[in-house]
């Protein structure tokens, strides 16, 4: 076991600490996050690899849809207004699926935040992931925290210039790769890649790449934590999402205070000392540049790197891990009451320990059952209901549809033999990438027949017509009923369309108008 004095003490202070609170519009204080190592850091590397992998590789996945549709697994075909997602093809009128997924993402975010705090911010948010990536580059080129601070404070030498140019170049390359990957979601990726490098891609592709390169470089390299603190609305909303049972990154001052850099000396005077040795490791690793020991705060994205840093220090000191840990407010409050003897005194860490230095049985620890509470049940219920609803709707949705517009002007036409004619615009939607022959039949409307404008289809009550794959076919149909068969000024009848090969069918209930007295 090492002596406390052997732990490296880092010069670091929170940028928003009350001691140095500054004017409303102050220049940004530079933050030089130190590399952390530990379980959470390893988990973040994993999340980073997975999320970046999904982002960059998805457009390159292929999915065979036959000769009449693109073979890109995920494709947002704006020009043809189709969205392809593996086995799902979405037409514009089915965009509610995307809206539904967004609602699910929102409720999912509520669920995650109410249980494990701002896990989205800390691990999966693109801003966090890309800043992490930019920091990897920065560390690789300029070194870790101390080297970077020294370089930053030092004069402009050739070496500094070279390192900086190198760093910003790599950042810009990452930015360009980010923008470059984005556009592949909107066109056939291999074709577009070729076009992009031969200069034959659409101008909008280059503009998009340029804009995303600029935003990635600015947000990930230059603005970093300021995006989260000043631009993002979520830190403001999180206050409404967290409750006393939500896990958040917490400094457990019930065991850490009073903090002291000279624990031995203080203990020698008979005063109690907490576990915190005020080494500032937690501040040094923080990508937001804050001090978690100031309590839960807006700037904290709960990336848990301070936990890793502090656990490392506690290991060196031979103390229990978890001076900074994921804890709920209710556990924290219970332990604080214990340590302050019901809130009467300042923190006395000896109150939470037994005589032999172990935690007393009265110390509250997180239990998994805290996740299951009415609030999270409601979120889980909403989430699954929407999900099941979307799934049901997806599995039972029509791939053959008919829409009918009834001519309004004129509503009906009297023909020379006294019969009445109504005009309809019939739209056949073949929503699969296969050519089909659709049979259109009219049901009801006694004695009536229909004819199609411009096609050599004999008048009758049923006709078959080919429809191109994945297309809408618009027909002008005239329905005609002999005068003696007319029953009333507005008769209801049905257009039925069916694909006799797949047994799919759809119906549209239409009205047939006739004058007050037919003759």
């Amino acid at each position, binding site marked *: 076991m090492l002596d406390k004095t052997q732990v490296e003490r880092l010069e670091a202070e929170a940028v928003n600490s009350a001691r140095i609170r500054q004017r*409303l519009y102050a220049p940004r204080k530079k933050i030089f996050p130190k590399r952390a190592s530990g379980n959470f850091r390893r988990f973040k590397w994993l999340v980073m690899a997975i999320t970046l992998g999904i982002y960059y590789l998805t457009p390159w996945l292929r999915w065979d849809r036959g000769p009449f549709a693109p073979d890109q697994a995920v494709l947002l075909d704006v020009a043809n207004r189709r969205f392809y997602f593996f086995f799902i093809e979405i037409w514009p009128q089915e965009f509610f699926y995307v809206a539904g997924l967004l609602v699910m993402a929102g409720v999912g975010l509520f669920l995650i935040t109410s249980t494990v705090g701002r896990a989205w911010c800390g691990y999966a948010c693109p801003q966090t992931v890309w800043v992490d990536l930019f920091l990897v580059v920065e560390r690789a080129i300029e070194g870790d925290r101390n080297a970077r601070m020294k370089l930053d404070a030092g004069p402009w030498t050739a070496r500094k210039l070279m390192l900086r140019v190198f760093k910003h170049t790599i950042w810009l390359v990452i930015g360009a790769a980010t923008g470059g990957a984005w556009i592949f979601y909107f066109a056939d990726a291999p074709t577009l890649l070729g076009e992009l490098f031969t200069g034959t891609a659409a101008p909008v592709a280059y503009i998009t790449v340029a804009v995303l390169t600029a935003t990635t470089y600015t947000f990930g390299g230059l603005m970093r934590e300021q995006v989260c603190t000043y631009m993002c609305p979520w830190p403001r909303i999180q206050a409404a999402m967290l409750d006393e049972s939500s896990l958040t990154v917490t400094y457990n001052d019930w065991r850490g205070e009073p903090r002291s850099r000279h624990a031995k000396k203080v203990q020698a005077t008979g005063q109690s000392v907490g576990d915190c040795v005020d080494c500032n490791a937690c501040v040094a690793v923080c990508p937001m540049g804050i001090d978690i020991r100031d309590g839960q705060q807006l700037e904290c994205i709960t990336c848990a790197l301070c936990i890793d840093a502090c656990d490392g220090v506690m290991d060196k000191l031979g103390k229990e891990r978890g001076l900074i840990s994921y804890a709920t407010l209710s556990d924290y409050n219970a332990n604080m009451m214990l340590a302050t003897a019901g809130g009467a005194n300042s923190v006395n860490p000896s109150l939470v320990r037994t005589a032999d230095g172990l935690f007393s049985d009265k110390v509250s620890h997180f239990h998994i059952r805290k996740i299951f509470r009415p609030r999270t049940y409601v979120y889980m219920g909403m989430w699954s209901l929407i999900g099941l609803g979307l799934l049901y709707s997806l599995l039972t949705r029509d791939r053959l549809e008919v829409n009918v517009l009834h001519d309004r002007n*004129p509503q009906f*036409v009297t023909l*020379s033999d006294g019969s009445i004619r109504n005009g309809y615009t019939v739209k056949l939607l073949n929503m699969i990438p296969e050519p089909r022959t659709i049979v259109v039949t009219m049901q009801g409307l006694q004695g009536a027949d229909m004819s199609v*404008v411009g096609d050599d289809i004999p008048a009758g009550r049923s006709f078959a017509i080919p429809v191109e794959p994945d297309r809408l076919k618009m027909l002008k149909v005239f329905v005609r009923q002999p005068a003696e068969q007319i029953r009333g000024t507005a008769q209801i009848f049905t257009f039925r369309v069916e694909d006799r090969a797949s047994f799919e069918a759809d119906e549209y209930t239409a009205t047939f108008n006739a004058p007050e007295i037919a003759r």
Partner: protein
Amino acid sequence: MSDEHIDEISGVSTTGHEWDGIRELNNPLPRWWVWTFYITVVWAIGYTIAYPAWPLLHSATKGVLGYSSRNEVKNELAAAEVAKGKYVAAVESKSVSEIAADDALREFAAAAGGAAFKVNCTQCHGSGAQGSAGFPNLNDDDWLWGGTAEQIQQTITHGIRFATDAETRLSEMPAFGDIITADQIAQVSAYVASLSGKVHDASLIQPGAKVFADNCVACHGDNAKGNKELGGPDLTDAIWLYGSGETAIADQVRAPKQGVMPAWGARLGETKVKELAVYIHSLGGGE
């Protein structure tokens, strides 16, 4: 208040303005904001040099880029003309029946004709070409002068009873009130009405048929089916331009109303008339 005053709580200097003891803090704008503002100023200056902007006495500065929204519209219209040039050329060179037989060409011509119809024809024929009393419905299958695309084209080009066009469609039903007796008018009206419906006094039909045979068959035909060459209407069908029933028929026999349609060939040009003919032919009654 010339001395700088520092607010104690915030540590920020104040502007020196004070209202009832409340002082205004002098927080400068964030730098990025200020710089954005400067950039917009510079941009605005450059913009007014590049584009038409500054008003002068009788005009405005032209701008070094030579941009003008009028020219832009002109160019867009020219581009649209070029884009549809292929179809327009085809409409010009082909006959209306050829146009009507070609799906794509018919669609183009009918759209263009529909637009021309809205401007020139709706005043009499109605916005849906549904007509009204005295003005024919163009959706139905009853045609005074023929319902093929060519016949419709001919009618639009030269009009009907349009005095200044030598080739205009011309028919004139005499006012039989001066030629036959009132009894004979009642008889012939009953006969004509009986061809497509019921009449109240069936005893008039027989003498009416005689009157009809003596006076009307020349234009309306032996079987009263009309004659499109002469513009003689079919009297056996359900469509009546000036009203159905014995009274309306008697009125028309006594002192006929005769509609006039202007000749459009000279005003709209051959291409536009072709497009109109294709549009009307496609309304559902074309032959």
